């Protein structure tokens, strides 16, 4: 058999050079040339959250996408990439796509989120936790809208929606004119990030007078959370809390530099990481006994969470404080300050017991509550379930610096009154310890601006990131003993696992359906066939009319062969009757 084959090849080489050309050159080309990729449009997409918490998977489990785009209006969605705009997004549509086993979902977010109608924003905010609640097999991506993407969407929409009621001819025409889009992501499959360290920062101000001074701990977590990590800017939650923490650190560091205002309380400021993942940063610091926090004589722990908006303040406690304890006095001072200086603010205490059966802790203070440390959380939100705390819609305009400044002032005043024991000393309620100028709104606003300038999802803030180092620097300016704490998940039984490939480049390639290629092939075959028949009949007629002089043979007329129109012209120019022979 092989001999025969080699014979064939030998003959091919010897006899017909063109054949070798036709056979071998394409073969070589096929072997060497890679498939080129020249994208119609290239854009950045942000993948939905993917993480495991306490062994429970959440979010999308897939990152690879290479399917054709459809909108949700199309009849068949299976193995297609469903693209939706935020304006048309609803949970039913999302569920429909997933039920029909779509290949992927791409949600297009408007470039200017704050220009969206409030009800759509609110609706999406409430859907975010639902989308994350269970694991999704297919990749879910978010993209920012631009003109190109919008045109891709509209073209897909027209081709998806109108297929049902057309005649065959219209469908054929449609396949020739309409564009399909093949969506392709460039990245690899997502995999778990090993040895991810969550960083927390602490700094302290030492009190004066005596060895065993009580310590007041102020805590705020700095990470943000949303349906897509790269889009979570977390302005109100918890950029506002961190900026208040930094402002408090600045104010009290000033007081603690003067001998006369140096109080008998240690102050510990703690910017915790992983707050949106069950307060991992705080957990570590309360679990490990070597940490100074538990050795100290803790007066109370004040957690700051979501304080940049609203006209109410809620003190969330897991156990109502008893009279005579420092926490009780803080509660009373807060009430007093709010009542006498800011009557427009509604202050209330919200009591919620720690539910240990729940997967997630409600507020950060519950981490301390479990360790029997007196703790509470201050927030303008009445409940921990509210969607504002974990939404990509929580962007810079959600923080009102004026209200943040006012809240900061309230907390600072109340803390100062506790530290200096002013009520017992008979100071009136409207005594202002910090003047208006001392709480600097520019400072707060600058910190919030900086925090919301980059996404701060826990998966993105590693120990070398600028967020951590800038925070550390900032704390170091006002506080002593600024330290970092790292939390790593246990290797064998990890409490949290993060995954990579959260930001990818997606290409939309313009494609045509396979039927289009077939149609094209038929058309080309018809065109070539016509040409061949024409040319063939032409030569044949020449042969039959052998009297036709050589001069008038087809080489001359070859330009004619190209087009059918010329054929009739030929008879005009070349009357078959030849005079000369």
């Amino acid at each position, binding site marked *: 058999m092989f001999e025969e084959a080699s014979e064939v090849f030998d003959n091919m080489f010897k006899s017909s050079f063109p054949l070798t050309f036709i056979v071998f050159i394409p073969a070589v080309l096929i072997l060497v040339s890679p498939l080129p990729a020249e*994208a119609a449009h290239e854009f950045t997409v942000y993948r939905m959250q993917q993480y495991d918490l306490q062994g429970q998977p959440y979010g999308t489990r897939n990152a690879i996408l290479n399917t054709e785009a459809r909108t949700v209006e199309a009849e068949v969605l299976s193995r297609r990439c469903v693209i939706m705009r935020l304006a048309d997004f609803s949970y039913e549509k999302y569920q429909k796509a997933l039920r029909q086993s779509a290949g992927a979902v791409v949600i297009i977010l408007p470039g200017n989120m704050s220009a969206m109608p409030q009800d759509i924003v609110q609706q999406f905010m409430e859907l975010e936790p639902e989308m994350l609640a269970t694991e999704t097999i297919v990749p879910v991506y978010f993209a920012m809208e631009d003109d190109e993407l919008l045109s891709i969407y509209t073209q897909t929409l027209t081709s998806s929606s109108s297929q049902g009621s057309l005649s065959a001819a219209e469908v054929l025409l449609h396949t020739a004119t309409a564009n399909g889009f093949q969506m392709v992501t460039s990245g690899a499959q997502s995999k778990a990030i090993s040895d991810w360290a969550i960083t927390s920062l602490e700094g302290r101000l030492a009190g004066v007078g005596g060895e065993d001074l009580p310590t007041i701990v102020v805590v705020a977590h700095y990470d943000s959370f949303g349906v897509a990590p790269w889009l979570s800017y977390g302005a109100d939650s918890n950029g506002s809390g961190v900026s208040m923490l930094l402002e408090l650190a600045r104010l009290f560091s000033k007081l603690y530099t003067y001998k006369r205002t140096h109080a008998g309380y240690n102050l510990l400021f703690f910017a915790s990481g992983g707050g949106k993942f069950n307060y991992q940063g705080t957990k570590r610091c309360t679990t490990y006994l070597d940490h100074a926090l538990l050795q100290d004589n803790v007066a109370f722990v004040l957690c700051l969470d979501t304080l940049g908006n609203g006209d109410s303040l809620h003190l969330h406690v897991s156990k109502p404080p008893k009279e005579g304890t420092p926490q009780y006095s803080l509660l009373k001072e807060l009430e007093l300050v709010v009542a006498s200086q800011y009557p427009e603010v509604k202050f209330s205490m919200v009591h919620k017991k720690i539910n240990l059966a729940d997967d997630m802790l409600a507020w950060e203070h519950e981490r301390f509550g479990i360790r029997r440390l007196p703790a509470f959380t201050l927030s303008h939100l009445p409940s921990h379930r509210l969607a504002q705390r974990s939404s990509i819609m929580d962007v810079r305009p959600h923080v009102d610096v004026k209200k943040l400044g006012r809240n900061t002032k309230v907390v600072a005043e109340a803390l100062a009154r506790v530290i200096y024991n002013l009520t017992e000393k008979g100071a009136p309620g409207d005594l202002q310890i910090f003047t208006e100028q001392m709480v600097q709104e520019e400072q707060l606003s600058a910190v919030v601006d900086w925090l919301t300038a980059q996404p701060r999802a826990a998966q993105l803030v590693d120990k070398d990131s600028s967020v951590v180092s800038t925070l550390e620097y900032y704390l170091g300016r006002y506080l002593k003993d600024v330290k970092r704490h790292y939390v790593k998940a246990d290797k064998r039984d990890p409490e949290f696992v993060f995954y990579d490939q959260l930001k990818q480049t997606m290409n939309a390639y313009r494609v045509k359906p396979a039927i289009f290629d077939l149609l094209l092939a038929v058309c080309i075959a018809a065109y070539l066939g016509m040409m061949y028949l024409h040319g063939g009949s032409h030569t044949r007629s020449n042969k039959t009319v052998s009297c036709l002089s050589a001069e*008038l043979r087809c080489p001359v007329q070859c*330009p004619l062969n190209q087009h059918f129109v010329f054929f009739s012209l030929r008879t005009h120019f070349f009357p078959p009757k030849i005079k000369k022979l």
Partner: protein
Amino acid sequence: MTLFHFGNCFALAYFPYFITYKCSGLSEYNAFWRCVQAGATYLFVQLCKMLFLATFFPTWEGGAGVYDFVGEFMKATVDLADLLGLHLVMSRNAGKGEYKIMVAAMGWATAELVMSRCLPLWVGARGIEFDWKYIQMSFDSNISLVHYIAMAAVVWMFTRYDLPKSFRLPVTVLLALCVYKAFLMELFVHVFLMGSWTVLLVKAVLTGAISLCSLFLFVTLVHSN
């Protein structure tokens, strides 16, 4: 898009050449090697043109969107070398006029097809992205086949000693049209801002007109002898 799409484009671009070769009777003359020689001459002439252009026409760094009329005209003038090349090929081949013309034109056009369209087709039409331009390119190769046959015919007529006086002017005009066709097309595109399909149509019409005229002249010339 797919290999199938490449096959489509390839068939559209190459089969007319094949059909022309077979049906024009060139295959009966066993003219394959002559065509290859013509192709080699094409390569040589293109190389010379490129060297010439690179040496004497520095890249024009005008503002974007501004059309360098004179520069483009001068560059188009360099295409006169094509005429010389075609003449060279035809003068080296002994035979009847139409045989000479067909060999030169086929070799010339095929060489151009292989050199300037084969690779873009292979790279472009096979990619994921669909674009009409590869189909257009294939059509364009059909048009250029007609163009080169007409051009060769005009060159052949021009170089004949027994060309009647009355033929001299139209042949010269056609020659100029053949050389400056690309330049004219560019000018049209620039002035009328045409879409790619319109450009193709205009090109086809222009080429058709030129080839009809040259055919008419050729037939009359051959008849008159």
